[in-house]
């Protein structure tokens, strides 16, 4: 058992770091969808101004690397906020905790602004990729469907909500899941901004050890955790796809994303 002593000692810290990874990826996924839905719909808009603004966002973000964007958000946006509006994220968070009388919650290592700008930059990046997915999914629905719905007298919004989106969502699920999986993987980039998530925590352990065997223990542990997170999401998505493929019954848009049967919850 002494062979595994390093990893057993580090286990609680690594699990805490894993929690940071999971929470920041969940926040990133939600925030990325918040960016993606307006941008994706905006690229399909009939209004030239809206369309070109969202195209500019998507093309610029997709054309530059995430690492560069994170660096710009952290070393740029943070300092610009400070210089222009005298707004410091760290101080603001500290004051917020002081107001709640909960200063012990302030992280001992790393910085709040690091994780703030990291999650923001990651979501801003993935918003562009997901916008493309959403646009492609909506375009993949046959045009006749929209025409039929419009000729039946549904409004544009009703057509989108009742006819196009339920079909588009089914097409979007595989690419969306792939993007979510890469998003979870890309939280490893947070180590550049000094956020103590799984990869940076492991790397701090690795750096002080020169033994190859112990280094491999740490790396194997880390890789296995990432594999469990990402492959688990992939398996859930695959199951969802298979079930949706088997039963093309009418399902509510608002329950379709749930990874379990919802017939007991919602009567169709």
């Amino acid at each position: 058992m002494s062979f595994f002593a390093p990893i057993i000692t580090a286990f609680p810290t690594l699990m805490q770091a894993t929690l940071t990874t999971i929470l920041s990826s969940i926040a990133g996924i939600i925030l990325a969808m918040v960016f993606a839905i307006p941008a994706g719909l905006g690229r399909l808009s009939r209004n030239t101004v809206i369309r070109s603004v969202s195209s500019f966002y998507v093309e610029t973000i997709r054309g530059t690397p995430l690492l560069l964007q994170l660096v710009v958000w952290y070393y740029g946006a943070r300092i610009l906020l400070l210089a222009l509006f005298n707004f410091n994220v760290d101080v603001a968070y500290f004051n917020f905790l002081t107001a709640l009388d909960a200063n012990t919650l302030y992280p001992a290592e790393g910085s709040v602004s690091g994780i703030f700008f990291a999650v923001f930059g990651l979501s801003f990046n993935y918003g562009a990729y997901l916008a493309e997915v959403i646009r492609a999914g909506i375009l993949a629905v046959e045009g006749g469907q929209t025409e039929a719905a419009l000729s039946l007298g549904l409004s544009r919004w009703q057509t989108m909500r009742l006819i196009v989106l339920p079909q588009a969502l089914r097409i979007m699920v595989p690419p969306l899941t792939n993007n979510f999986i890469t998003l979870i993987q890309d939280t490893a980039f947070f180590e550049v901004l000094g956020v103590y998530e799984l990869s940076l925590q492991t790397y701090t352990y690795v750096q002080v050890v020169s033994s190859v065997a112990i280094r491999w223990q740490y790396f194997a542990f880390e890789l296995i955790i990432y594999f469990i997170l990402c492959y688990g999401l992939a398996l859930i998505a695959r199951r969802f796809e298979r079930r949706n493929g088997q039963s093309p019954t009418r399902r509510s848009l608002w329950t379709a994303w749930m990874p379990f049967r919802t017939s007991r919850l919602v009567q169709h």
Partner: protein
Amino acid sequence: MVKRIPAPVRFAGVAAALIVIFGACSMFLLGAMDIYQTSQTGNLFNPTVLLSHTLHFLQQTWYALTIATDRAGVPYHEYLLLGVGLTIEFCFISMPLALILGFVLAMMSRSRARWLRTPARAFVEFFRNTPLLVQMLAIYSALIFLPPSLLNAFTAGVATLVLNYAAYECENIRAGLEAIDIGQSEAAQVLGLSQLQTTRLIIVPQMIPIILPPVMNDLIYMYKDSSILSLITVIELTQASQNMGHNSPNLQWQAYLLAGAIYLLLSLPLARLARWVEGQIKSSRLGARTDLTSAALLTLGVMVLVGLFCGVLEVGLTFGNIVDAFGELIAAIGLSVAIMVFMMALLGGLVGIPQALWLFIRRPHDVDSGAAEGQGQAGSVAVMPK
């Protein structure tokens, strides 16, 4: 009925709105950055102040691109050029290797032999579901027992990109192979072509138009993913711009802006080119007359040579440097293949041995359902029925 506005007026209005929106946003951003850089104060909502700061920022950008040097007298455009060279070198060397290894993986994962299929699937799933960054750090910092000629920043970077992208290309190529009708290869075998001839003359030429768009997309992704190599001391474009920012902090913003512009300039023409080639092949102007397999292999070879040439240009075009570059390329290929074989053996053993035991236990009861259920390999019956 509202009278429709005539088209020229509408166009002018839209153009004016776009210019106002983009111009105002960019002017405000650039002016704010200039105020920060020059440590001045000024109300940016005052048009005169805003214009002067924006112009000053653009002037500084032009200065950074043309005559600005660091303390040693090295001009900054040389930083950026060297960075672009290294980025192109890594991408153009890694992508062909990844495609070739991905093809091997795809053939293995379509094989009927379980001892070939399981390791390939395990390898692909493992490398697709773990972060590229962690793979790179693991390869670079946990294989330190290897000699430095075999494991340095170049070989570790190439091996990481190759292994990760081989897994993704394997999926692309597998999708391309599955899209081809099975009757094609059956007809080829009936006509008396061998397995190799079928692959070379029938399968691959039909597969290339299908996989070309995702592969080009992956090449664009690779440009951007190669920025992580800055963490293992490769001075590629991102690191070059960061160095520029460190050497003269008053040009930091210009450095990031120029680096982002260069990445855009690298990737946008490639996307256009991909769409053009795809159209040429689909309209069968290119596909009917050329031997696509040879053309593809030739393209890959030329890509590797261009990458090597870029690498040699960095250090100076001499005979010794060319020999060194070839040596490093061979070391990188050896490292990639060695890690791939090792990981396939390890992961294949971890997954395959319990799987084989499980199938062996279940064999007497029901052969068919056991094989069909076996670890999600749907439909492929690997256990011979009695």
